[in-house]
C-alpha cells in the first residue's frame, strides 16, 4: 500500500529534455564558468544564452573540501535557467581511457572512483570515463532542488568536447576518417574517428597553458602579454613553442601511422578545437611536421541554422579565441539533448 516516492520522482522526469544549460567546472578560467543554454525545438538547436558566469568553478581537491562545501548554493542568471544542467568537469584526477572492463557508475570498480563505460567501436575495448566520487557527488549537489536548473548529467570535459565536436558542420562535411585535437589548458586529447566511429583516444600532457608559459618565460612577459603575442603576427613565436609542441605533434604523427598501418584507416582530415590563441602557429608547425593543414572548429558553426546564432562581435562566444573555451559546455549540452531526443 505504501507509495514509493523515489519511483514517482523518477517517473516525473521521463519527459524529453529539450532545454539544457551546459557548464564547464574546474577549467580555472579567470573569466568565470563557461555556460551555454541550448534548446531543441522541432529538431533545430537554438543557442538561447551563452557567456561566462560569475561562479567559483574550482573543484574540491579532497573529499574533506567537498564535504565542507555548501550544497545547493549555486544559482544562475535568468537567461541560463533551463530545467536541466549538464556539467563538464576538468579534473586532474579524472580519466578517460580504453579499458577491458565494462563499468556502470562505479560498479565492480574502485569505490573511490565513479566510472562509466561505453563501446565506441565493435572491435575495440570500451572507453571508460572516471571521476573521483567526491567530485562527482559535489557537482551533483551544486544546484538546489526545486529551482532551475538541476544537474542531470556529469561528464568528463574531453567527452563533452567530443560531443560538441561531433556536431560541428566541418566534421560532418568531411566525413570518412578524421583526427581531432582537443586542446585543454594542461593537456591535449587526441581522438581519431573512422567512418564517424571513435577508434582511438589518447591524452598528452601538453596544453595551451604550456605554450603560453613557454612564450611568457622566453620573452619575459606576463601571461596576458604572451597571449597577445600568440594572437598577433608582430613576433614569430614558433621557435619558442616548437620545443613544447614537437612531442605532441610527434605523437600525432605516430597515431596517424598506427591508424594507417594497423586499422587501414588513412586520415585525411585534421581538426583542432578548444584552442583560444595561437592557432596559426599551431597550424604552421602541424603543417611543417605532418604535411597537413588542420581546421579550427568554431563552436558557433554548430548553430548555423539557429535563430540566436548571430551574436555581437563583443560576445565571448562570437570570438574565435574565447569561443573555443565553450566547446566542452556546448558538447555537454548536446550530449544530453541527443540522449533524450
Amino acid at each position, binding site marked *: 500500500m505504501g507509495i514509493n516516492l523515489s519511483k514517482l*520522482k523518477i517517473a516525473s522526469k521521463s519527459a524529453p529534455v529539450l532545454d539544457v544549460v551546459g557548464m564547464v567546472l574546474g577549467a580555472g578560467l579567470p573569466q568565470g564558468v563557461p555556460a551555454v543554454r541550448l534548446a531543441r525545438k522541432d529538431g533545430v538547436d537554438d543557442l538561447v544564452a551563452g557567456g561566462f558566469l560569475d561562479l567559483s568553478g574550482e573543484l574540491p581537491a579532497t573529499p574533506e573540501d567537498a564535504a565542507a562545501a555548501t550544497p545547493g548554493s549555486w544559482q544562475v542568471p535568468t537567461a541560463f535557467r533551463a*530545467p536541466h544542467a549538464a556539467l563538464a568537469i576538468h579534473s586532474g584526477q579524472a580519466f578517460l581511457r580504453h579499458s577491458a572492463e565494462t563499468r556502470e557508475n562505479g560498479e565492480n570498480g574502485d569505490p573511490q572512483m*565513479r566510472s562509466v563505460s561505453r563501446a565506441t567501436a565493435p572491435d575495440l575495448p570500451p572507453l571508460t570515463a572516471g571521476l573521483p566520487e567526491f567530485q562527482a557527488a559535489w557537482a*551533483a549537489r551544486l544546484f538546489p532542488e526545486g529551482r532551475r536548473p538541476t544537474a542531470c548529467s556529469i561528464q568528463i570535459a574531453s567527452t563533452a568536447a567530443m560531443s560538441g565536436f561531433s556536431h560541428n558542420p566541418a566534421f560532418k562535411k568531411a566525413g570518412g576518417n578524421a583526427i581531432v585535437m582537443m586542446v585543454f589548458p594542461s593537456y591535449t586529447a587526441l581522438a581519431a574517428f573512422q567512418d564517424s566511429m571513435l577508434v582511438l583516444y589518447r591524452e598528452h600532457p601538453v596544453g595551451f597553458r604550456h605554450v603560453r608559459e613557454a612564450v611568457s618565460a622566453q620573452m619575459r612577459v606576463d601571461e596576458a602579454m604572451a597571449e597577445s603575442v600568440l594572437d598577433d603576427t608582430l613576433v614569430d613565436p614558433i621557435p619558442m613553442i616548437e620545443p613544447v609542441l614537437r612531442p605532441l605533434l610527434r605523437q600525432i604523427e605516430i597515431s596517424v601511422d598506427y591508424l594507417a598501418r594497423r586499422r587501414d584507416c588513412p586520415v585525411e582530415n585534421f581538426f583542432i578545437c578548444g584552442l583560444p590563441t595561437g592557432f596559426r602557429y599551431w597550424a604552421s608547425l602541424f603543417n611543417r611536421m605532418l604535411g597537413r593543414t588542420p581546421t579550427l572548429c568554431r563552436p558557433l558553426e554548430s548553430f548555423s541554422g539557429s535563430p540566436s546564432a548571430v551574436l555581437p562581435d563583443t560576445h565571448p562566444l562570437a570570438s574565435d579565441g574565447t569561443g573555443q573555451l565553450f566547446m566542452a559546455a556546448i558538447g555537454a549540452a548536446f*550530449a544530453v539533448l*541527443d540522449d533524450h531526443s
Partner: protein
Amino acid sequence: MKASLHFNLIRKEEILSPSPVRLRVMLPILSLLLVAALAVWWMLALTRAHAANQKLAAVNAEIESLSRSHQTVLSLCAEEKELSASLRQIGFYTNALTRFGGLLSGLPEHVPADIQITELYVPPPAPPPAPAPMPGVKAAAPTSTFECVSLRLAGRAGGDAPADAVDSLLTALRKPDFTNLIVRAAVPPGAFRQEAARGQGNRNTLLFEIQCDCVPRRFE
C-alpha cells in the same frame, strides 16, 4: 556515435527535480490537508447533529406543553363546526318555510258567497323512498333537500249554480294572487258530489274538494 559519447556519471538518485512543486513534498502536505479537511468536516457534522438533537428536544418539549391546549382547540373547532352545521340547518328550515299566511288572508276575497269552506288541510309530506339495504353498511340518514307540499280544500257549494261557484273558486286559485304558492289546483275525480247526509232539503248543496300542489320546500 552521439549517444555513445554521453558518459553520464551522475546517479539516478542524484537527479533532482527543478520543479518547485514536488510530489515528495506535496504528497505529505496534501495528505495533512486532506486529514485536516476531514477533521473539520467531521467536526461540523458532529456540531450540526448536536444542534439538531437539541432542537428536536426543544420542539418535543414545546409539543408536549402545547398538546393540552391543542386538544382543547381541536374540540372547540369540532364543536364550532357542529354548531355551524346546526345553524345552517336552521337556516335551511327558515328558507324552506312555506308561508301560507298571505294565501289564507287573501282567500276570503275570492271565495264566492255560495261556497262554504269546511276544511283546509296541509297533509304531511310523503317519506322519501328508503334506499336498498346493503349488508354491513349502516343506512344513511335522509339526505333529500326537497319536500313536496300540498293543500287540500274541502267545502260545500250551494245556491242556484254551485258548480259555477266551485269553478269560480278554482279559477281564483289559479290567479297570480296564489300562483306564487300554488302551482296546480284541480278537483280530483269523485270529489264533487251531492250532500245527502243532511236530508232531502239539501239536495242542491254540493260537496267538493280541491287538491292544490304547492311550491315544494327546498332546504337550501
